C-alpha cells in the first residue's frame, strides 16, 4: 500500500510525462497522440515506483525490463525516460527529425533506456516472453513489464506469446493491455470485436483483472497484486481513453495519428500551457 503523498507524487509525475509527450509531438507537428497519452499513468507508476530501472543500472542484467510492444506510443516513453535522466531534454525535441535518436517507434540501439526495438505489432509481446524466460533461466527474480495495445491484440503472434508465457509459468512477466477501445481505423468493437480480455487471459491461465487505467492508485495496487502472483503471469487490463488527460483530444474520434491544423494546434498549446502551469514549467 502507498500513502497519500506517494499517490500525489505519481499523479504529478504523470502530469509531467503528459506535458512533455504533448510538447515533443506538438513541436514535431504530427504523431501518435491518442495511444501515447492513454498509457501515461501506467508509465508514471512503472518509472515512478514499480520498475527497478534507472540510467545508473541500465546495463545491469538484474534490473527490471520494460517492453513497449505498442511501439507507436514511443513519444510518451521518451518523455518518461527524459524525466528519469536517461538523456537531456533537447533530445525530446528531435523526435522524428532527420538523424534523431528518438524515432517514432522505440529502438534499443538508438535510445538509452529502451530495452527492446518495437513497432511491428505483436512482436514486443514475444520479446517480453523471451526476456522473462531468460531472466528466469538465469535465476534472477527481476520483473519484465510489457504494454500491448488492445488493437495490437488482433495480431495472432501476441496470442502465441501469451500462451507460451503461461505454459512456461513466467510469473515475473506482467502484461498491461491498453484498452483504449480504438485502433487506427476505428473502434476495436467494430473492426474485430476483442470480446472480454479478462476472461480471455484467464482462459489462457493468467491472473487478470480490469482496472481504471487513468488512476495511478489502481495501477499501483494492480502491480502489487501482480507481483504477489505465483506460477502464473499477470495481465492487467487498463480501461483507458485514447488521448487520455486532454479532454478535447479525448473527444476526437480519429486521434490515433494527428497532424493538427492551426485551430487544433492552438488548443493543444493552450492545454500544454495549462499543464505547464500546474507542474511549474514555463513553456
Amino acid at each position, binding site marked *: 500500500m502507498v500513502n497519500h503523498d506517494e499517490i500525489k507524487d505519481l499523479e504529478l509525475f504523470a502530469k509531467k510525462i503528459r506535458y512533455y509527450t504533448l510538447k515533443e509531438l506538438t513541436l514535431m507537428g504530427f504523431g501518435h497522440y491518442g495511444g501515447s497519452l492513454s498509457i501515461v499513468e501506467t508509465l508514471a507508476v512503472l518509472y515512478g515506483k514499480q520498475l527497478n530501472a534507472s540510467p545508473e543500472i541500465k546495463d545491469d*542484467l538484474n534490473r527490471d*525490463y520494460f517492453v513497449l510492444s505498442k511501439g507507436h506510443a514511443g513519444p510518451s516513453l521518451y518523455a518518461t525516460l527524459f524525466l528519469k535522466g536517461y538523456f537531456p531534454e533537447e533530445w525530446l525535441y528531435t523526435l522524428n527529425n532527420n538523424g534523431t535518436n528518438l524515432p517514432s517507434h522505440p*529502438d*534499443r*540501439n538508438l535510445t538509452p533506456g529502451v*530495452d*527492446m*526495438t518495437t*513497432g*511491428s505489432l*505483436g*512482436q514486443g*509481446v*514475444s*520479446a*517480453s*516472453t*523471451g*526476456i*522473462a*524466460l*531468460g*531472466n528466469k*533461466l*538465469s535465476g534472477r527474480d527481476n520483473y519484465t513489464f510489457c504494454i500491448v495495445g488492445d488493437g495490437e491484440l488482433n495480431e*495472432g*503472434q501476441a496470442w*502465441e*506469446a501469451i*500462451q*507460451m508465457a503461461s*505454459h*512456461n509459468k513466467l510469473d515475473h512477466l506482467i502484461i498491461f493491455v491498453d484498452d483504449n477501445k480504438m485502433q487506427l481505423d476505428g473502434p476495436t468493437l467494430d473492426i474485430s470485436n476483442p470480446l472480454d480480455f479478462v476472461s480471455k487471459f484467464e482462459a489462457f491461465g493468467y491472473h487478470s483483472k480490469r482496472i481504471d487505467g487513468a488512476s495511478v492508485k489502481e495501477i499501483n495496487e494492480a502491480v502489487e497484486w501482480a507481483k504477489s502472483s505465483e506460477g502464473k503471469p499477470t495481465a492487467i487490463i487498463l480501461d483507458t481513453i485514447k488521448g487520455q488527460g486532454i479532454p478535447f483530444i479525448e473527444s476526437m474520434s480519429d486521434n490515433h495519428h494527428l497532424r493538427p491544423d492551426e485551430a487544433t494546434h492552438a488548443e493543444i498549446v493552450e492545454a500544454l500551457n495549462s499543464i505547464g502551469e500546474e507542474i511549474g514549467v514555463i513553456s
Partner: protein
Amino acid sequence: MTFMPIKEEIEMRKMYADTLIELAAKDEKVIALEADLSSAITTSKIKDQLKDQFLNLGIMEAEMIGTAAGLSVTGFKPFVHTFANFATRRVYDQVFVSLAYAQLNAVILGSDAGVTAEHNGGTHMPFEDLSLMRIIPHNKVYEASDSTMLRHLLHKGYNEKGLTYIRTIRKKAVKLYGEEDTFETGSKLLREGNDIALLASGIMVSDALEAADQLAEEGIEAMVMDMYQLKPIDKEAVLKAAKTGAIVTAENHNVIGGLGSSVSEVLAEESPAHLYRVGIREKFGQVGTTSWLKEDYRITVEEIVEQAKKLILKKANIA
C-alpha cells in the same frame, strides 16, 4: 582423380544435435529452440541432456523468433531450428525486426533445403530462403554442404555477433571434407581448371565435381568451388573463377537471389565473365524424390555439363 560421391556416415541432423551438445556444455547461455520439429532434426534425443538449454515452444514460429530475441536481450545465444521455409518466409518480419534490426544474436538453422523437402511438397520446399536472408543487412548466410562443414559453421555462428542463417539438408550429405579442413574464407577450391569454373553450394557441390570429371573426359578443365558462404560472398574466389572467362553456378534454390545472383553481382561490378545459373527458374516446389525433382527442375550433373559446354562455345565465338 575421378570424384566418387560417397554418402557420409553421419546425418546432418545428428551433427546439429551433437554440436549443440558440445556448445551447450561449453556455454550455459547456449539455448536450442524448436517449434514442434524437434523429432525431425533429432534434438528430441538430446533434450534431456540439454535440460533448461532446450525449449520446444510448440507450433509457434513467430513466437519462437521473438523468444530468441528476448533471450538474446538477457545474454543468451539462441540456436533456432525449423524447416527453412518456416524459418524464413513464414517469419520474415519477425526475423527482420526483432532479431536483425534490433541487432540481437541468434543462429537460425533452416533444414530441408530446396528439393530435399521431398514428399512435404510445395508448401514446405524452400527455393527462396537464401535470397530472403541475404537482403537483411549484416546477416551472415551459409549453405552447408557436408557435416564437417556444418559443425564448423555452427561454431562460427556461435562466435559471431548478430544473426547467422545456415541452410542444410536433414539427412546424409556426400562426404567432401575431413577433419583437417578449415572454413575461413567463405569458399573451398576443390579442383583447379582454366577452361571454365563451376561454382556450387549445398547438394550441388558434389554434382559440380562429377560434372568436372565428365568435362575432363572431353578435354575441358573445369575449376570447382564450394561457395558455402553466400553472404558476404568470397569476392576473391569469384574473381579467380572469372579468370577462366566462363562460370556456371549450380544451386538447389531459385536463381534469383541465391548463389547465381551473388556471383553475378560480383562479376557485373568487378570483372564481367560469361555466366549461366543452374537453379530453379520460375517454379514452385512439388512432391517427389530428390533425384526426380532434380531432373524435373534441371539441377543435375548433366545440366551443369551441358551449360558449361555451351558457355565455352560462347566464350570461343566472342574471343
